[in-house]
């Protein structure tokens, strides 16, 4: 996923309470945060509520940041923790079935033949379900890697663990996904 870089001045303006600067930061991160919460929590309602909670938290803490690098580490940490808290509160650590029905808002799929679109949606649902079977720890690493192509080093800072732990969890996460989805061989 691509993300627009945020200029230093925007953080200053946001810290001064500038509405447009907040909107700018929101626009740069909204899809990343929504995808993070969606793939962590596995459904649209929870993703919506927790995304809202995350941005509200951001708006009351923005004055702590001067640069995007320190900001994004903090922000992704807050986002992951908000998801983990939500799971704990809701006692939803068990495997869940994900019913994803929103098919009209995906980008760049409108010109594809219907059969291919149906197949891709089915594959996406299968991958979603497989992600939901991973433990929250493995899921966090996978989702961070997915939403912003974050490096192992960035992920280790966000999750406050070693590089070895990140690569080992990513290794295990990929292996579980691969095992769960081996039947999809060569369909993509």
């Amino acid at each position, binding site marked *: 996923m691509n993300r627009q870089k945020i200029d230093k001045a925007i953080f200053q303006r946001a810290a001064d309470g500038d*509405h447009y600067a907040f909107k700018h930061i929101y626009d740069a991160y909204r899809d990343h945060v929504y995808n993070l919460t969606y793939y962590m929590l596995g459904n649209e309602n929870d993703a919506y509520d927790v995304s809202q909670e995350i941005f509200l938290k951001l708006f009351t803490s923005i004055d702590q940041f001067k640069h995007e690098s320190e900001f994004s580490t903090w922000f992704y940490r807050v986002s992951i923790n908000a998801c983990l808290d939500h799971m704990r509160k809701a006692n939803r650590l068990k495997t869940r079935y994900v019913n994803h029905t929103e098919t009209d808002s995906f*980008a760049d799929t409108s010109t594809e033949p219907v059969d291919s679109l149906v197949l891709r949606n089915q594959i996406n649902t299968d991958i979603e379900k497989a992600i939901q079977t991973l433990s929250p720890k493995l899921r966090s690493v996978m989702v961070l890697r997915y939403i912003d192509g974050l490096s192992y080093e960035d992920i280790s800072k966000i999750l406050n663990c070693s590089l070895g732990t990140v690569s080992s969890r990513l290794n295990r996460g990929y292996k579980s996904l691969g095992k769960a989805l081996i039947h999809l061989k060569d369909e993509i």
Partner: protein
Amino acid sequence: MKTNTNHIGHRLVFYVHDELDERETTYIATHLEQCAACRGEYELIKKGAEMLASLKSIPAPRNLWDTILRELRSQTESFTEDSEKTHLPKINK
């Protein structure tokens, strides 16, 4: 090596992402040719990485920003005296 076998272990993830230097890449490629166990692991990890990368991005719902603004406004109204300190956005009504 500290691992109890000479298998590749979780360094396979770096190999899959092509993030090793030439020497290590050659070492692992050679090992994979000779070791069925690691080759099996490698196939699964590669598959999992491909699956994750192929996941569709879901756009944030359009009304999310409005919901956030509404919530901020209600917080600003109930904490008018603290709004300077908490740096809530100034909302044009």
